[in-house]
């Protein structure tokens, strides 16, 4: 029986409390920090060598789908009623509404040092000291909307542009492609203006603080953001039923992408699972 992932703005008080408590429980036992570490370790950029499984690659979507499932399994070992809610940033765009409330993720960082001082993940609670980080910062930071150089959340039309593209991804399967659903959603552009950074990438930048960097998983909003990105993948799939994950076959030895991307039936590191096996998760969870 599939469980339901809900819109975070619709959670009851009890659902909010149980989700937060499950996060705090896995943080306390060190499990949460392993997720932070894993995300840092799997960020391989496409201008450097090596296999890209998590970013700048077709498997951006299945990698994060499995990553969410692992986190969700950890939460459900604490409390079997918990599922990861999603944050629809095309609708919930205020810095004071869900998910930025005191009973959920807490609010914006304070002006002086961007430290989050409200809600269950505030440093002063003693429950959310950051261990795995790019910097020596031990407290959660946010700079919602980036006060010093403001940007907006992605517009609904940005999401629509991605959803309309019938092709999952195109060669060379990296951050430079300007077609294909995957990179339109992941959001790598070119040029220097902030308009070049779309959808998924743009939300990371809008939240700011730790969400700006490689240790973005330290902000629990990471999961709510990626649950919505994952939901958008299911929407794309239902719009383009004849289209599948690409590439279907691995690039050959003559290709610059040889052994650098994960094809449909290849194992997706670090798991023993293929993108093909992750394309349909509807027997595990559904979105409300």
């Amino acid at each position, binding site marked *: 029986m599939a469980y339901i992932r809900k819109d975070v703005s619709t959670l009851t008080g009890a659902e909010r409390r149980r989700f937060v408590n499950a996060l705090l429980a896995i943080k306390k036992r060190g499990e949460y920090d*392993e997720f932070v*570490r*894993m995300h*840092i*370790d*799997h*960020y*391989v*950029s*496409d*201008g*450097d*060598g*090596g*296999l890209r499984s998590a970013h*700048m690659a077709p498997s951006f979507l299945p990698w994060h789908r499995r990553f969410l499932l692992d986190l969700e399994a950890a939460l459900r070992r604490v409390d079997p009623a918990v599922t990861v809610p999603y944050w629809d940033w095309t609708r919930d765009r205020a810095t004071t509404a869900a998910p930025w409330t005191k009973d959920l993720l807490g609010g914006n960082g304070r002006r*002086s*040092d*961007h*430290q989050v001082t409200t809600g269950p993940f505030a440093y002063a609670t003693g429950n959310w000291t950051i261990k*795995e*980080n*790019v*910097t*020596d*910062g031990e407290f959660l*930071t946010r700079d919602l909307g980036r006060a*010093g150089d403001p940007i907006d959340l992605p517009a609904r039309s940005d999401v629509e542009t991605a959803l309309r593209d019938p092709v999952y991804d195109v060669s*060379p399967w*990296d*951050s*430079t492609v300007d077609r294909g659903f995957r990179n339109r959603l992941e*959001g*790598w552009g*070119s040029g*220097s203006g*902030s308009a*070049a*950074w779309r959808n*998924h*990438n*743009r939300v*990371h*930048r809008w939240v*700011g603080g730790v969400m*700006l*960097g*490689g*240790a*973005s998983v330290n902000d629990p909003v990471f999961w709510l953001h990626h649950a919505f990105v994952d939901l958008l993948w299911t929407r794309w799939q239902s719009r383009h039923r004849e289209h599948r994950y690409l590439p279907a076959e691995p690039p050959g030895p003559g290709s610059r992408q040889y*052994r*650098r991307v994960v094809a449909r039936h290849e194992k997706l*590191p*670090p798991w023993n699972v293929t993108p093909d096996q992750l394309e349909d998760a509807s027997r595990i969870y559904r979105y409300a």
Partner: protein
Amino acid sequence: MAVSVEGVPVSAVPAATARSAPARRTRRRDLLRGLLGASAALAIAPVVAASRPPGPADAGPAGSSFDETYRGRHIRGALTSSGPAAATGGEWKVTVDGRPLHLMRRADGTWLSMVDHYRSYATPLEAVRAAVDGLGPGERLREDGPAHHHTHMGGHHGLHP
């Protein structure tokens, strides 16, 4: 040299691009010695600019090294031929206030850092300045280097050694 970046005073040691090749090489060695210590510098052969593949990053004003104070932070960087990225045109060794900052390269030749990870910049210098912009007051990079242990080799990532 004193320039202003978005109203923030910046004092910069000029990049070595205008110097002759031997002078540039010496300068880079000095910089590397400062960055990495003498023994590390000896092991690193300077990369001649012409040996690098052309790309937007190479056209940047930073040339092959920089050393400046930006928003009160001492940022230094130098291109080396060591490291896993050597095959793709050399690796930048960068520090902010003496602590290492890992730079990554995008396939379009632009750069991003571990601090500012969801967009890229035309030059390493721009990427490092953006990383400084992303640091809070008093916040420093980790002393032991960026929390980034992957091998660049693909497949093996040593998650739990």
